[in-house]
């Protein structure tokens, strides 16, 4: 990287796609293609033959004198044989020589991040080195300009291509015509904003020089780099006068250095934001099919829209929640679809989607805004707080049911006879000793909200008059007055985000759960372990008997990655269809060639990187679409395949953003960062060693560890591990098989897959490495030594078979 050490800004501009390459004849010559002189020579031989044969000997001298000047020889050729013959001859020469060419230099160019490229070469060596046409658009005529795309490698062949001999520009008249084209104007405008890098320039690239000269007179601040093997101040004076920085070196070594420099740059400086993602609330005009990525803040209509496309109702084990004879605790981390499933049980959803059930659910999302106002006071006795909070919980539930009923009434999901409504509301008002002559549901709702608000400001609990803590049951019975729909139904009280409850509040909830009374059961969502199973008075609830726990983030663990992929494909295609897109998700996210620094593209990779967190998958696709099609946030845009290099850019950025979640670790930030970075280095070392040992074997990455003798773990490490799991930087793996040859229980943690790009690891997954807790304890004292020791130990103890202990995972080939 010696050649480019002095030019960090150049590297930055190339890495950030702000450059324009000019590839002159010198580049193709390196590959073995004829340069202008050689081409002229070949054409000249034809002319010499012709004049000898026709005995026009006076012409021979002229030809021989001009044999090295392509312009002149081409003109003779044209005059003798005509335009078609001239251009067909050139096409023929190029086609023949291209077969024998060594295109390695062009392979290197494909490894550079996408930037526009201008070339005067007739051959197709460059474009053929891109594995598919997903990433490139080749432009040589005005009609091709429509294919120009900021997210592709746009290759402007200003002298045409041998594949279309009529496009070849060789005569002065051709160049004159070219200057009147839209392509010329477009290129002219590119100079304004791009850094120009000229490689393999020769004096025969005169028409490029013309565009350059013309544009620089308009935009004198164009930043220029001229890469040249033998710099001659006499020949290259005009470039120097224009302030071009001269990089002395051959095209091949320049591109070799450039690939490495840009790779290093992108490793060191990942962007922290995708600028084109719109900020603030999700707008109606936003046509990104993945715009809904969380249930937070969704109104009921939006939720219904999301419900079909986030976690379809028929999906997997959660149907257990429908059972009426038990409470359920749905435990899973953020983004796994917990809220969608729970909210899906709610009456509005059942009615709109015409889902026939023997139950009716009411979804009640908790938050600190509600629960934080009714915490236990220091002088509350157990009994006093039980009564206070149980009463609050009952009123809060009644309030939410009233809000839902209002919604059902307003939107006509359920029609309430006026007389029934009055009768129902009067009964409830009477129960709660409220006097109000307006016996309608909105009035009732406002009255209940007023009562509930009093609990929030009940600073003096001793004198506060609470409502009957068991009122909820009476209220549910009253619903049958309102509508027949509620008759003979089981009731599900669906309490979401219960992790916001503190210990005392959970104890009160346990009292509700332990007091089983049909037709009422509770469906509870929590992102952390519920943790409390006994109430204030010693009553307990038992798993299996009173309740079941459903671990949503393990559903796919049992069925495997293929099922997860199918599930994601299905939901993505439903979303695309809903937003009137004709493309499928696999077409939208095509997989490209796995080239240096560019491994992360294709539908499968997106699925892997989401690490079985559905929201992460949706967010990845959403942000890729916003990046590739910024205008979609305000209008409909027909989606077309997103080039692999673009997907790759987004993934790197998202990976970097994901790691930045470490900021939420607070005072543990330093420890968590050190832990994650050290593990990243360890996995990288193992990967490098594996490559050295078996260069021809498919290499997979260890991206997890199993900790032996967990009880020996230093509390500081344990705290960092737990925090990293809480922040979803690490995950606790779900093991398919019972591990063999294991003497002591193991505690496993693995990287969230989205960290893999950040550390440049492989997506193919290898079994987790076993690490003694005592070894892990040394991580904070000397992380470098920890990595060195562990790498050595793990090499020495390389197990024979991966398969025996492999976690359920997958490989991307």
């Amino acid at each position: 990287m010696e050649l480019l050490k002095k030019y960090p800004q150049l590297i930055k501009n190339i890495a950030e796609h702000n450059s324009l390459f000019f590839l002159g004849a010198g580049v193709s010559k390196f590959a073995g293609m004829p340069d202008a002189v050689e081409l002229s020579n070949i054409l000249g031989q034809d002319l010499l033959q012709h004049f000898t044969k026709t005995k026009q000997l006076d012409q021979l001298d002229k030809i021989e004198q001009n044999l090295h000047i392509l312009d002149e020889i081409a003109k003779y050729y044209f005059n003798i044989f005509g335009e078609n013959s001239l251009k067909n001859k050139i096409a023929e020469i190029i086609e023949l020589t291209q077969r024998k060419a060594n295109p390695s230099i062009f392979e290197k160019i494909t490894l550079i991040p996408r930037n526009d490229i201008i070339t005067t070469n007739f051959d197709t060596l460059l474009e053929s080195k891109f594995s598919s046409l997903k990433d490139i658009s080749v432009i040589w005529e005005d009609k091709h300009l429509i294919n120009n795309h900021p997210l592709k490698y746009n290759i402007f062949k200003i002298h045409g291509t041998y594949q279309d001999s009529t496009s070849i520009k060789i005569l002065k008249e051709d160049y004159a015509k070219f200057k009147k084209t839209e392509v010329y104007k477009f290129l002219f405008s590119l100079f304004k904003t791009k850094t120009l890098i000229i490689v393999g320039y020769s004096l025969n690239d005169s028409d490029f020089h013309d565009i350059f000269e013309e544009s620089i007179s308009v935009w004198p601040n164009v930043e220029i780099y001229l890469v040249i093997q033998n710099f001659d101040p006499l020949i290259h004076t005009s470039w120097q006068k224009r302030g071009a920085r001269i990089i002395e070196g051959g095209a091949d070594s320049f591109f070799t250095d450039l690939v490495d420099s840009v790779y290093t740059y992108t490793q060191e400086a990942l962007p922290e934001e995708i600028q084109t993602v719109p900020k603030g609330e999700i707008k109606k005009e936003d046509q990104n099919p993945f715009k809904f990525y969380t249930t937070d803040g969704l109104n009921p209509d939006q939720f219904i829209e999301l419900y079909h496309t986030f976690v379809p109702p028929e999906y997997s084990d959660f149907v257990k929640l429908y059972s009426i004879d038990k409470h359920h605790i749905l435990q899973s981390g953020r983004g796994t679809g917990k809220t969608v499933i729970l909210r899906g049980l709610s009456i509005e959803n059942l009615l709109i989607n015409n889902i026939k059930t023997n139950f009716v659910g009411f979804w009640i999302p908790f938050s600190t805004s509600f629960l934080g106002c009714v915490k236990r006071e220091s002088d509350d006795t157990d009994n006093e707080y039980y009564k206070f909070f149980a009463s609050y919980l009952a009123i809060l539930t009644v309030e939410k049911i009233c809000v839902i009923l209002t919604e059902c009434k307003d939107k006509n999901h359920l029609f309430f006879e006026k007389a029934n409504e009055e009768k129902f509301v009067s009964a409830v008002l009477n129960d709660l000793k409220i006097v109000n002559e307006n016996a309608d549901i909105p009035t009732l709702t406002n009255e209940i909200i007023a009562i509930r608000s009093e609990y929030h400001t009940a600073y003096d609990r001793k004198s506060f008059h609470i409502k009957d803590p068991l009122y909820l049951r009476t209220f549910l019975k009253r619903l049958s007055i309102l509508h027949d729909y509620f008759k003979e139904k089981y009731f599900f009280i669906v309490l979401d985000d219960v992790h916001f409850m503190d210990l005392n509040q959970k104890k009160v909830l346990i009292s509700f759960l332990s007091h089983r009374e049909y037709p009422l059961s509770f469906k509870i969502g929590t992102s952390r372990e519920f943790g409390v199973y006994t109430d204030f008075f010693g009553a307990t609830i038992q798993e299996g008997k009173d309740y079941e726990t459903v671990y949503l983030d393990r559903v796919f663990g049992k069925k495997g990655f293929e099922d997860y992929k199918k599930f994601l494909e299905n939901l993505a295609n439903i979303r695309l269809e809903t937003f009137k897109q004709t493309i499928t998700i696999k077409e939208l996210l095509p997989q490209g060639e796995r080239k240096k620094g560019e491994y992360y593209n294709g539908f499968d990779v997106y699925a892997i990187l989401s690490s079985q967190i559905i929201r992460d998958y949706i967010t990845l696709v959403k942000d890729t679409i916003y990046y590739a099609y910024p205008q979609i946030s305000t209008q409909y845009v027909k989606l077309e395949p997103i080039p692999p290099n673009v997907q790759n850019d987004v993934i790197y950025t998202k990976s970097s953003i994901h790691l930045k979640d470490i900021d939420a670790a607070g005072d543990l930030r330093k420890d968590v960062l050190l832990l994650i970075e050290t593990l990243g280095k360890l996995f990288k070392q193992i990967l490098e060693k594996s490559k050295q040992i078996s260069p021809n074997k498919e290499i997979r990455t260890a991206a997890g560890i199993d900790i032996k003798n967990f009880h020996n773990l230093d509390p500081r490490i344990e705290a960092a591990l737990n925090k990293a799991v809480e922040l979803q930087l690490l995950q606790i793996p779900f093991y398919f098989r019972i591990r063999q040859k294991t003497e002591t229980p193991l505690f496993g943690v693995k990287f969230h897959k989205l960290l893999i790009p950040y550390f440049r690891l492989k997506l193919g997954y290898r079994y987790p490495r076993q690490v003694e807790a005592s070894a892990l304890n040394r991580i904070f004292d000397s992380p470098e030594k920890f990595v060195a020791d562990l790498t050595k130990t793990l090499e020495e103890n390389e197990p024979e078979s991966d398969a025996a202990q492999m976690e359920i995972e997958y490989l991307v080939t």
Partner: protein
Amino acid sequence: MALRIIPFEDYYIKEKCVLTCVSYEDRSKLVLEKILDTKKITSCVLIKLSDLFEDKKPITTLSSKNEDDLVRESWINNYNEIRDLLTRNNINLIEIEGSSSDIFSLAKKISDALPVDEKILFDISSFPKYLLLEILRWNENKKFICIYARPGIEREAETEFSIGTKGIGVLKGFEGSIRFDRVNIMVLILGFEGARALTVFKHFEPAKVFAFLGNSLGFFSTTTNEFYIDNAKRNNSQLLSNQRVIIDEISALDPYSVKEKLDLTISNYSSKNDANIIISCLGTKPQTLGLFIYWLQNKHVQIIYSTPSKRRISSKGVGPIWVYKIKELLHE
């Protein structure tokens, strides 16, 4: 009232009572020295949130001191020095001790201890923001002249502000009007503690966030102002990169301007009456004053607090000091 904010040097102290608190940073002590220099003060109400600094083990040798030890030691030294200072100046000292877990009762105790009919100098520089709000709420009818001193030297690095959050809750008396049939809109007035702001955001997961960066233009040079904004941006970068976050600026030192900005921003939503407004101030004390002034006219908003999991000395000395005539501010 034309002049709401006055440089300390230009303010002629007439008040006899000062309300201040003990801190592990030296700002309250240094400001008190300056106030006592005027020889007008006769009594001091000194607040001690001593539970924050209770520790079982004694502070021993220098080599064994960790960050918590240093904070505790600094707090004890400042406390002793304030007491000496007050004794030397023959000031009547009223000490009020309370627990950070019961700010509500503490604020009530403070209210009971403060004189009723006279103006009180209130050095807000070192008060925890949530205690400041609670004191103001309990003393809505009292006449405060607030003093705020910028720190002399401040830490800058992001990691130095990486402080965890021990608890997040609703501030008593500021419960607001929260309903299930409204979406949650959050307003975060940001400071340098990015980790805390991010934790608050992740805790509530609101539909939309207005994140305000403090702008001290008019109080400092453009360069200094940019320095503060850049620091806040950098330390809060993860929060600010979130799709649901809308970034804006708000005055760092002018409470009235803070109030106006909040009014303008939130009125778009409250006029529609379709949002629960949840506000957290992680910025400066003058911004907290501004939030309080806003709340006085908008009691439907909910104010939440977040308590740091640990304390860290992040500043030293005093910079410019300003006087805020809070009573006039309220009545404008």
